[in-house]
């Protein structure tokens, strides 16, 4: 009798632990996603300042500025994660082009204000990349909990679904490429 009661107690405790672990993993994913949003917000705030200074010197890149402005508007109104990621990747791509074009404007390159903004931009880009990597790590740990035995039994029972990791664009993987912009 006590033996059976012991087994039942053990199973109940194990179930509570496993369930709490799943909830904890899901919350870490949400928390990590929130951090990406914070970092992206930092970038949105920085973008207009950077564009404003660059515009004063760069006469032939008006198209990039117009596109950036419209993408920023899209980014703030994007609803789904997919939309957000798509817009973010486009902004990163355009900014990379812009930073390469800076080479043609020595006055802009020499401007202290622009250099500081450019440094802040690099910093934010790396922070976003770090936040994405943290998100991916949280998702991997959550997915492991959802897929591995015995927690997968509870995951199915309580509707915990696998989550997708962020695809990091190839260009961003080479996160030190920004160095090249300064080494001229």
């Amino acid at each position, binding site marked *: 009798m006590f033996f059976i009661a012991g087994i039942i107690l053990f199973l109940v405790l194990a179930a509570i632990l496993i369930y709490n672990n799943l909830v904890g993993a899901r919350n870490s994913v949400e928390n990590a996603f929130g951090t990406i949003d914070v970092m992206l917000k930092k970038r949105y705030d920085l973008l207009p300042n950077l564009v404003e200074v660059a515009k004063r010197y760069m006469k032939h890149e008006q198209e990039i500025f117009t596109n950036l402005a419209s993408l920023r508007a899209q980014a703030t109104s994007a609803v789904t994660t997919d939309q957000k990621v798509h817009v973010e990747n486009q902004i990163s791509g355009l900014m990379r082009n812009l930073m390469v074009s800076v080479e043609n404007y020595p006055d802009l390159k020499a401007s202290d204000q622009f250099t500081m903004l450019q*440094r802040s931009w690099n910093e934010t880009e*790396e*922070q976003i990349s770090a936040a994405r990597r943290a998100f991916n*790590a949280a998702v991997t740990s959550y997915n492991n909990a959802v897929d591995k035995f015995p927690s997968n039994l509870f995951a199915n029972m309580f509707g915990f679904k696998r989550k997708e990791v962020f695809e990091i664009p190839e260009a961003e*993987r080479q*996160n*030190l490429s920004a160095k090249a912009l300064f080494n001229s």
Partner: protein
Amino acid sequence: MRKIQNFQSFYETDLRLALIQLDGEREQIVRKILMYSAIGLAVCLLLLFLGASLLPFILLVVAFGLFYYHHYRKFRERYKHEVIRHLVESEGLTYDPVQSIPKSDYQRSKIFTQHPSRYYGDDLVSGLVGKTAIRFSELHTQQQVGSGKNKRYETIFRGIFFIADFNKKFVGETIVLPDVSENLLGSFGSFLQGLNVMRPQLVKLEDVEFEKEFVVYSTDQVEARYILSTALMQRILQLKRNVNTGIALSFIDSHVCIAITIRKNLFEAPHLFSSVDNYNQVAEYHGYIQMCVDIVEQLDLNTRIWTKE
């Protein structure tokens, strides 16, 4: 970044003369020691012949020890001044043979959780490598274990402790330690690492090779990844291969601290009975200084593309 490009020619042109001179002084000391020892020994034998006990022999050995130590200490100072200082200054850095990385900095690095009850250090090197301020010294720290008759001291760390200004701003604490338990126990080891109450959160990074060699703890998951970019992880792995010994790192207060384990006394003169004009020995010491200077380049600390200048 290296100032001395060809060590062999540097040795011949810049060091050789000083070493030969030092060796002359050493030979003089040795002659003096041998002469006094011979006289002492003759007197002892005479006393023994006259029926004295072994006491004069014991006194002779003690006197020999004190005499040797006295001369070695002075010679060691000369060696550090003439050879090590020259090596360090030729790399554009400054040298203090007596000072070391302070205990407060060692403890602030949080690489070692044990409290050091004995703290020894010397040979402090400091200066700028490009835009990066660096400091390093030899350290030997020990902790007391047991009590009463069983009291003994165990080494916590012995080797070179290196501190440099880091090129990114951060506020938290990130510690990179050699991975022992995961290598031994696999995923169970990793589980145990997560339970370590002495450390902040465990950070699982995506670089498999890096994860195999190191375990990372940090107060902030995102900041740890901001510091340990994919490029820096590879650079740390490369550094570990180059120094070919155990390394542990911490990123605290906008500085990077690196503990490089080397289990021998560095930057010291050889004993008085062997020549100081020893290319291999000086080359080895130079190698350690160069290794520390090269860390700046290897970890790319002079790249200042972030807001920290």
